């Protein structure tokens, strides 16, 4: 091939390559668009466990019958779910029904991407107050939360019986019980104190029950709660490694018998049952006898993004309402070891699922993390877990640690 002919074939080849690259870059999002009628909608959720998927698929099938709307599901990996949602928000390719973690709702709602439920006729009677607050932003209700989870105290009944220790119900009893159960490489108490939202989540029951307030974290009440954790670690009742343990790691320690008590949630039931650990779930100990336990509200909410398609949004609203109905709540709660958020269902639920009693009793007292601060909650959460880390590593006393890391906005 001569130089000239080489050039004339190379240029078109180059242009073709550039064109192909450019076109492949423009392929856009991969959300499959179902037919343009309002009889089918796209529902997006994080990919959960196999059991979760099965329970939800059954409930969704029931909702398809009740509402007459076909539901197409799209599962997104849990890691980076929020990043994917933000991506969809900015490229205006949101699904018709979107599941979010209740802690993320204010952030997404504040961006204007969600439709307030008052635009549609959705019945939300009977929901616990904390649940309504968690699903609201700036006075408007944006989501329906059918089931909730929270954390409680798990105790190893065998270990407690062997040490002759009763189940603790107050902070002082917790300290003595944990001390009695520690020794020989075992610890009495375990919790997660990582530098993430998990650490804050685990700390909130102690913080709130003592009167702590997330809008002003550097108070005596907050410091006392942090002092409890510092005392547990300093006295050797809890391992220093709580600074690095996630809730999953804490569960591993409990299953291995390295700790007699732990703070964790009902999602650990399957692994505990499989390992055959003799456990009992009780309320988190209160500061003083008779104080109310205020624990944080966890769980997913169902929202209706602003897609601009009126017909689809109305169809989506009927699906969302169905997800929050009594039948759905009971099915989801029983199948996934969670609690229904409708206070009228609590008694029936405890009757059918006695082992969830410890959690179900806390439903009326559940508090939303974002109720007061909305989208600014993340700053307060960071302040709390930073203070926990500083205090537990001996960097400062609890009150000073809280003052140093309090958000200054």
């Amino acid at each position, binding site marked *: 091939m001569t*130089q*000239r002919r*080489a*050039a*004339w074939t*190379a*240029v078109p*080849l*180059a242009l073709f*390559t*550039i064109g192909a*690259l450019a076109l492949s*870059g423009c392929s856009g999002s991969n959300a499959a668009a179902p037919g343009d009628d309002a009889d089918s909608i796209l529902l997006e959720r994080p990919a959960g466990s196999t059991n979760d998927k099965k329970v939800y698929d059954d409930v969704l099938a029931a909702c398809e019958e009740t509402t007459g709307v076909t539901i197409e599901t799209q599962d997104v990996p849990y890691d980076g779910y*929020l*990043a994917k949602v*933000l991506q969809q*928000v*900015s490229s205006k390719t949101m699904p018709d029904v979107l599941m979010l973690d209740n802690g993320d709702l204010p*952030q*997404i709602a*504040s*961006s*204007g*991407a969600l439709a307030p439920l008052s635009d549609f006729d959705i019945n939300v009677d009977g929901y616990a107050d904390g649940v309504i607050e968690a699903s609201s932003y700036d006075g408007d209700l944006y989501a329906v939360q059918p089931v909730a989870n929270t954390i409680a105290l798990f105790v190893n009944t065998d270990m407690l019986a062997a040490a002759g220790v009763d189940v603790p119900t107050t902070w002082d009893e917790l300290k003595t019980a944990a001390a009695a159960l520690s020794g020989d*490489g075992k*610890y009495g108490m375990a919790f997660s104190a*990582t*530098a*993430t939202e998990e650490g804050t989540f685990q700390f909130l029951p102690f913080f709130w029950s003592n009167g702590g307030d997330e809008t002003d974290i550097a108070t005596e009440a907050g410091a006392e709660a942090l002092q409890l954790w510092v005392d547990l670690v300093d006295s050797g009742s809890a*391992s*220093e*490694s709580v*600074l*690095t343990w996630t809730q999953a790691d804490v569960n591993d*320690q409990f299953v*291995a018998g*390295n700790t007699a008590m732990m703070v964790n949630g009902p999602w650990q039931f399957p692994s505990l049952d499989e390992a055959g650990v003799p456990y009992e779930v009780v309320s988190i100990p209160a500061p003083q006898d008779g104080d109310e336990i205020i624990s944080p509200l966890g769980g997913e909410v169902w929202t209706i993004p602003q897609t601009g398609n009126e017909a689809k949004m109305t169809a989506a609203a009927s699906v969302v309402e169905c997800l929050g109905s009594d039948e759905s709540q009971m099915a989801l709660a029983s199948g996934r070891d969670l609690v229904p958020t409708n206070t009228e269902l609590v008694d029936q639920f405890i009757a059918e699922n006695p082992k969830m009693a410890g959690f179900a009793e806390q439903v009326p007292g559940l508090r939303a993390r974002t109720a007061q601060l909305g*989208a600014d909650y*993340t*700053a307060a959460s*960071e302040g709390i877990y*930073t203070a926990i*880390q*500083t205090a*537990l*590593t001996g*960097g400062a006393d609890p009150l000073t640690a809280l003052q*140093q890391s309090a958000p200054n906005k």
Partner: protein
Amino acid sequence: MTLRAERWLQLAFVVPAALYLVFFFGYPIVQNGVMSFQEFTTRTFFTGEAPWVGWYNYVEVISSPGFGRVMLNTAIFTVVSIVAQFVIGLALAVFFRRRFPLSGVVRSLLLLPWLIPLIVSSAIWRWMLDKDSGVINQVLSGLTGSDVSIGWLTDVNIALPAVILVNVWLGIPFNMTILYSGLQDIPEELYEAAALDGATGWRAFWAITWPMLRPVTGVVVLLGVVYTLKALDIILGLTGGGPAGSTETLATEAYRLSFGQFDFGAGAAVGNILIVISLIFAVLYLRANRKAVDE
């Protein structure tokens, strides 16, 4: 006519790569630079509005109380990691020059740390370094006979060295492989000639190996610095930046600001500081390379 055709041919080869660089490197960098001067939050994703705030993000990030420590952590982490990785990698490369039975197998095995996904490595190391039930403390207890309970990832003074240790373990295969191939390029005759003059062992190393490795060393150190400066998943996996911020570096800070606080403007500002530091190193490397070529 042939000259013009040749020009077209040259352009045709360069244009696809140049376009790729512009779209996938140039555009994000420019966008990042612009974002650091704006107030970019989750609201921006929906409305597209991001008010201009000038140097506010930079001022806020640099004047925040933890920033000095973050810079110090980044510097210590990078320098110590690079030096340790390089020295150990070079020692291993020189060691493997001589063939012994199974040397090929052992050399391949030493590649494993590099091949395991980072997030898997950091998860396993986190368990191994656990204070109470971790394997490292158990082995040390067995070896010394006493109860060794070092808080590798929980003690504020030991966490950074522990993270550096894991990073060095990860970086040795890369250094060893590239330096080994660099060593292969040095002709045997040089060593033979030197041996005739009486220069063997250390003398041969300093006189022949080290100078001949100069270009390879430059590449390895530059790549190592750039990779280490932006190392994120290793630190997040091991300590998450804790305990109490003792392993927080510029990369983890940028991640936390953008995806924890959703303050993308501030995260972009920290990211830009990181880019500037990398750029300084790249310029130094090019300068040093040019001087070496001129010599």
